[in-house]
Every structure is written in structure tokens, then in C-alpha cells.
């Protein structure tokens, strides 16, 4: 029912056909949601072809295209009953890039276009919250300055005067944040198109062999607000619990929360249960939307939504991030519900996730009675015990003698890295979960607790401690741990059965005669120096069975498949499911690479 006559702007009202090549990824997603009957804030897109025209005209927006944008804007104003720059019913919009393939270097997002001093005052009245109106204005100036004008400025403190942001931006970039809404819109659109030829975007395309032809679309979308009236708010909704994977929906609801442009810390977070009590129809509609999107996309969804005066809007949906345990459980549940096949389910779970679920845990009874030495922030999860050492050299020396040690430092500098590699776990007095120590231990997969407090560890050297880095607790003494058995976990045992069935290589319990033991041959023991593939191939070819530490790596799995080894035996500490998943993932990669399709 497009009311627009020009091909140069496409209203995303569900009447258009999806198509990433023309509309870009962002608009394509909106069209797909609209076609499923879901409500998203009204939007139009300027298709990829206009980006080409922009560059063909030497980096200028064609006047006919701009007129089409103004038509699109009028359509958006009719759809929303608001107008850009009109204080009696102000429309604010977001501007986003959307290339067919998303890539670094593209201008990302500018929110709250259309704000002016007058609109700020109007928003203050409408919301009854002048701080919110002020912050919206200030953050628009900051974001426009950073994203469109490339000014390197700090994020503004709440309450900062927009004028001071404007002068900071002018000083840093030599350009002004426009005061007229239409100028804001036009400059933002230009910046998106221009960013197609940014140095970083060109470098990325070169690296990946993507053509410099083509371009990006620009999507202009009405902003909805969860703080402009009764029965409003914002939230996020996971269609399954992302920590356990149980089918119980999980989410957060902030009544009166603004929406897309989230200001932290001002609203008490409530649960979806609270939403159900306050707005039962909205809650029911949200759950139904979740079911529709799960089926359509074949995976657990993480949905951002805003409720404006009792009307539910979906802002974004994507595959939900999840814990290792949830990855296993949801993969199995989706396969059993027939939403995906078993091969897909097996591809959804990584060997690392399985290994993480199978990590030993502290025996709960022991933890309850143990002395807590300190609490800090978990930086890298896991459980480990050992003797405390205070520096890198001692850690290195002890590890050389095969002793388990825990490295404890006030902070970590580059010279501590050798010690962090040698230690079983790391504790620091200062710093949070984004400190250097946290980054390094996560890269190593070493359990780490940070920020236990200045001076707290002063007399720890030589003591036995146990670290529960999942909870951020340091216990006195060596506490017993419990192994987790895959057989006791319904999801893992199901995955194990499916993996055995799907995998061309058997994982056997008994080590048959003639098994090639890579560890005994000294091959692949040091992860930093991968073995020569040819040597590996010679060793494995013709072997009836193989085993070794490196078989639980992508390179090891590839070598086994390429050499046609029919069976593997688990080395100590290896779980058959981990080996099988490595093989299945490697096989799927081989098929993708040879053009035969995945899974």
C-alpha cells in the first residue's frame, strides 16, 4: 500500500518484499517482523542504490532523493501522528546504516534526531521529567558530534548543558551540530552514505574480498518512548532462560523507562511477572511474539521492546546469548520440538561449552563450612586450588616442579603474564571485571577473582586456598570438588547419543591395538606450536584409532578426518562428547569450504 511514488525511498510497512541486497540488513529485519504481523516503530529506508548515486555524484545527496526522503518523512509523520520539530507533538527519529553484509567502519546509529530547544521543553512537559528531556538533548549532541562529525569527546555527565556539548564538538571537529531538525536528518544520511567509503570500511572489504561497488541503505525510524504517559515502559525479553535454558521466559521490565536510548540507574528493574500483573494484554502479546519469532528464526530470541501508552513495539530481535548449560539444553529442546534438526542442534553447541558444563564444581557441603578469606568480582569462571605465591617467578618455579599454585597480586602488569600462565588461578586486590588481569585470565581460561580489596592478601603467601571464580570467593584450604557426569545431565546425554549417531568417527572406551598415541609421540603437546600437518597426516594415516590432547582441538579433529581414522579413544580428562563435537564441527567446516553446504 505504499503511498510513496518514488523508488528512492521504501516505507517498511510490510507490503514490501524483504531483500537484504536492496534494503540492507536492518530494514530487511524490520520488513520481516512486519510481515509476521508484529508491531515495530514505523520506518522507511533509503535503498542501497541511492548510496551508489551519492558516490557517483561525487559525494552529494541527489536533490530528487532528498525530496523523496521528505515524502518518506511525511508518511512517517502520518503514521505516528507526530511531526519532526513540532513542539505540540514532536517526532524524534533514529538514523541507521544497513549494508547487505554488516561491516566495520560504517556509521552506526544516531538517536533522537529532531530535538531542539523547543522540543526539549515540550518533552519535559509531556514526560513530566525535565532531567530526561535535558539528557536526551545533551546525548543527541554528543552522539551526533561523535558519530557524524567525528569529534573525540567524552560521554557527557547527566545534567550537562547541550550548549556546552555543542561548543565541545565545534572545538574538536570544527563543525557545528545542526539546530534545524531537517539539517540534522540530511547530515546524518550523508554521513551514513559517506561512511561506505571510510578508510576502515574499505580496508575491511579488501581483507574479505567484498566489492567496493554496492553500498549501504539508510533506515530512518520513529522513536517510541516508554516514559511519555501511563501504561508505558521498556524492557528486554528472552524467550528462554539464558542461564539455565529452561523454557521459562526471562526478562526485565522498567515501567516508565525510556526505551532505546537507555539511561542507566534511574528506574527500578522489575520482572516479566510484574509486567503481566500491570499490563496483562501487553504481556500476552509479547509472549506470543516470542513464540512467532522463535519459530521463524529457529532459535532462542532476545527481544528489546518498548510499551508506549499500552501499545507494544518490538525494537529488535536477535539470537540470544546464553550460558554453556543453556546452549546445550536449548539446542536439545529445539530439536525435540522439531524446530531444528539434530544436525543443527549439534552445531549449536561448542566443545568448549560442553567442557565448561563438565568442569568440576566445589562440593556444596564443603563450601558451606569453609572459611571465606575474601570476596571479589568474578573475572573468569572456574574452580581451582593451590598454594598462594606472590610473584610471577615463584609461580613459574612452582609450576616447573608440578606444584599447583595460585598467583596473588595487587594488580597485574605485563611481567606477571608468565606467572598467570603457570598458576592454576589468579587473585588481584584491585581492579574490576574489565581490568588487564581479567582480560588476560579470560584469554587463558584461568579462573580469576579480581578486586578482593587493597591489603587483603598481605599475609596469604604460602597458604592453601581454593578459588571459586564463578562466584568470586576465595576459601581457606583445599576444598573437595565434584565431577559433573554427562550421563546425569539430560541435555548432554541426549547430545552424546545424537553425536555418536551422526559422527563418522567412533569414540571408543577400550583402546585397541595399534592406536596412535600422539601424546606419547610428543605431538601437539604445546598449544603455542601446532604440529606440522604433513607429519600429523603421516602418523595418523592407516591408524585404527588415535588418542591425544590435541585431538580436542579443531586442528586435531581436521587431521583425524583427513587421515580417515575410524576411531578415537579419549585421553585422560577428555570427554567423548567434546571429541565428537570437534569432529562434527570440523566436518561441517570442511563441507562449507568445499561448497557442499554446512551440517
Amino acid at each position, binding site marked *: 500500500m505504499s503511498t510513496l511514488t518514488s523508488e528512492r525511498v521504501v516505507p517498511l510497512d510490510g507490503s514490501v518484499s524483504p531483500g537484504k541486497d536492496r534494503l540492507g540488513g536492518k530494514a530487511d529485519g524490520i520488513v520481516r517482523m512486519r510481515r509476521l504481523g508484529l508491531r515495530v516503530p514505523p520506518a522507511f529506508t533509503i535503498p542501497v542504490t541511492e548510496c551508489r548515486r551519492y558516490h557517483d555524484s561525487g559525494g552529494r545527496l541527489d536533490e530528487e532523493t532528498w525530496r523523496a526522503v521528505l515524502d518518506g518523512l511525511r508518511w512517517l509523520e502520518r503514521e505516528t501522528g507526530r511531526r519532526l520539530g513540532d513542539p505540540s507533538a514532536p517526532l524524534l527519529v533514529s538514523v541507521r546504516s544497513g549494508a547487505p553484509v*554488516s*561491516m*566495520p*567502519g*560504517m556509521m*552506526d546509529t544516531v538517536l533522537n534526531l529532531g530535538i531542539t530547544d523547543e522540543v526539549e521543553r515540550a518533552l519535559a512537559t509531556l514526560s513530566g521529567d525535565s532531567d530526561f528531556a535535558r539528557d536526551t538533548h545533551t546525548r543527541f549532541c554528543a552522539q551526533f558530534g561523535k558519530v557524524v562529525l567525528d569529534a*573525540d569527546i*567524552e560521554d557527557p555527565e547527566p545534567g550537562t548543558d547541550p550548549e556546552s556539548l555543542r561548543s565541545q564538538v565545534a572545538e574538536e571537529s570544527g563543525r557545528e551540530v545542526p539546530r534545524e531538525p531537517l539539517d540534522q536528518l540530511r547530515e546524518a544520511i550523508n554521513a551514513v552514505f559517506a561512511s561506505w567509503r571510510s578508510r*576502515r570500511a574499505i*580496508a*575491511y572489504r579488501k*581483507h*574479505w574480498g567484498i566489492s567496493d561497488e554496492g553500498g549501504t541503505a539508510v533506515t530512518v525510524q520513529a522513536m517510541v518512548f516508554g516514559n511519555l504517559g501511563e501504561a508505558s515502559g521498556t524492557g528486554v525479553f*528472552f524467550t528462554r532462560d*539464558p*542461564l539455565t535454558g529452561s523454557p521459562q521466559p526471562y526478562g*526485565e521490565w522498567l515501567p516508565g523507562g525510556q526505551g532505546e536510548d537507555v539511561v542507566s540507574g534511574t528506574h527500578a528493574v522489575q520482572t516479566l511477572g510484574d509486567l503481566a500483573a500491570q499490563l496483562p494484554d501487553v504481556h500476552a502479546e509479547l509472549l506470543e511474539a516470542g513464540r512467532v519469532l522463535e519459530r521463524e528464526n529457529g532459535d532462542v530470541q532476545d527481544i528489546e521492546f518498548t510499551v508506549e501508552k499500552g501499545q507494544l513495539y518490538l525494537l529488535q530481535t*536477535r*539470537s*540470544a*546469548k*546464553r*550460558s*554453556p548449560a*543453556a*546452549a546445550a539444553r536449548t539446542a536439545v529442546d529445539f530439536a525435540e520440538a522439531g524446530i531444528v534438526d539434530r544436525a543443527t542442534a549439534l552445531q*549449536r553447541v*561448542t566443545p*568448549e*561449552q560442553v567442557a*565448561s558444563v563438565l568442569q568440576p564444581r566445589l562440593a556444596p557441603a564443603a563450601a558451606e563450612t569453609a572459611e571465606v578469606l575474601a570476596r571479589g568480582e568474578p573475572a573468569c569462571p572456574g574452580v581451582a586450588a593451590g598454594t598462594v605465591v606472590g610473584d*610471577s*617467578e615463584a609461580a613459574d618455579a612452582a609450576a616447573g616442579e608440578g606444584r599447583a599454585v595460585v598467583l596473588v597480586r595487587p*594488580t597485574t*602488569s*605485563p*611481567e*606477571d*603474564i*608468565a606467572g*598467570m*600462565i603457570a598458576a592454576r588461578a589468579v587473585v*588481584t586486590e*584491585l*581492579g*574490576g*571485571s*574489565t*581490568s*588487564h*588481569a*581479567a*582480560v*588476560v585470565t*579470560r*584469554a*587463558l581460561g584461568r579462573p580469576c577473582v*579480581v578486586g578482593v580489596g587493597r591489603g587483603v592478601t598481605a599475609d596469604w603467601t604460602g597458604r592453601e586456598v581454593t578459588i571459586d571464580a564463578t562466584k568470586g570467593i576465595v576459601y581457606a584450604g583445599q576444598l573437595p570438588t565434584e565431577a559433573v557426569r554427562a550421563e546425569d545431565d539430560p541435555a548432554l546425554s541426549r547430545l552424546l547419543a545424537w553425536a555418536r549417531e551422526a559422527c563418522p568417527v567412533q569414540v571408543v572406551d577400550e583402546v585397541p591395538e595399534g592406536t596412535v598415541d600422539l601424546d606419547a609421540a610428543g605431538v601437539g603437546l604445546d*598449544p*603455542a606450536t601446532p604440529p606440522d600437518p604433513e607429519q600429523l597426516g603421516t602418523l595418523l594415516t592407516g591408524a585404527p584409532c588415535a588418542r591425544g590432547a590435541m585431538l580436542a582441538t579443531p586442528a586435531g579433529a581436521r587431521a583425524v578426518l583427513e587421515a580417515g581414522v575410524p576411531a578415537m579413544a579419549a585421553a585422560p580428562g577428555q570427554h567423548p562428547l567434546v571429541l565428537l563435537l570437534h569432529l562434527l564441527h570440523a566436518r561441517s567446516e570442511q563441507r562449507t569450504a568445499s561448497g557442499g553446504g554446512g551440517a
Partner: protein
Amino acid sequence: VADLLLLALHGLAVKSAATPDAVAALVGQSPGDVQQALESAVADGHAIGAKGRFMVTPAGRAWLDDTYPRAFAAHRADPGFTSAADKFERINRDLLALLTDWQSMPAGGERVPNTHADPDYDRAIVDRLGDLHDRAAKVLDRLTSAEPRLEGYVTRLDAAYDKALAGEVDYLSGVRVDSYHVVWHELHEDLLRMLGRTREE
């Protein structure tokens, strides 16, 4: 020669246990000169050497702490240099937050490991790194014009960023390669030592 002694031992303190070649690359001097300087540091009791690698001794650390204020007095008194170092600290916070997002992802109020199964998520972070790399370039320009040997870090950061852009995921936060974080962490330590500042985390 005193300067070379200082630079060699300073580079060794940044690197921890290291070969003369690695220290030479870090401080922008010839490996032969650095080898000589480190051997004389061993004679002074400021370093120990074994199997071709050297380490700073506690006495060497004390000597460095005594020597820094005089050796880097000009930088410490230069508001242009210290304000660039302040800006570096701000970018440092952003880098650590970015690398945290690279390694772990928010899921339902907790963070879970990034399995790198979501290309869009990873691409967005590489994009943020590109943005940060551009911001850092401006600050590093100011630092290297005062202390040209820091140019070596710039070259290594460029190389790490290029690898990250080309999809080599280890080159963001990996420990066993010359990743962006490894180089940055050393540069940070170098600046802290020159300016006599204490690490906040």
C-alpha cells in the same frame, strides 16, 4: 651509555623475562647494543641472565625507580605529554571494556563466554576496535613526537589491528601472540614507568 643502560633495563622491566632482541625491538635500539647493556646490568647486579634471557633483579628495580625521575624529567614536566597520557588512560578503560565484551557476552544479567558463533556480534566489536584504534592514533602521535622510540608500539598495534580485521580472532586479546592487548598492556606499563604513575587496576 647511561641512556642505553636505562633504556635496556627499562625495556626489560616492561617485558619481564626477555631476550635482548625482544628488548631491542621494544626500545628501538640495536640488539648488539642492548645485549651489551644488559650484560653490564648483570655485572652491576641489576639483572640476571640465563639461557639467553634476562630478568631485572630487585636491585635493578630500585635503581630504575631512582633513575626514572631524572631520566624522564622533561616528559613529566611537559603538560602536552602528561595530558596525552591522561587521554591514553581514558582510551585504556574503553579498550578493556571492549575486550571484555569480546571475551564474554551479556546474557540475562550475567556474562557468558563469547563462542564467536555470532559474526555480527564479533564484527561490531572489531568495528569498535577500529574506532578506538583511530582515537589512539591521535594520542600516540602526540606521545611519539616527544618519545620517538614509542613508534615501535604504533607499528605493532597497527599489525595487530590488521590481523584482527582479517578475522584472526587471537589478535584482540590473545596472550601467546602479539595481540592488541599484549602490545597495549606493554605500552601502558612503559608510560606508567616513565611518568612514575601507579597502575589503578
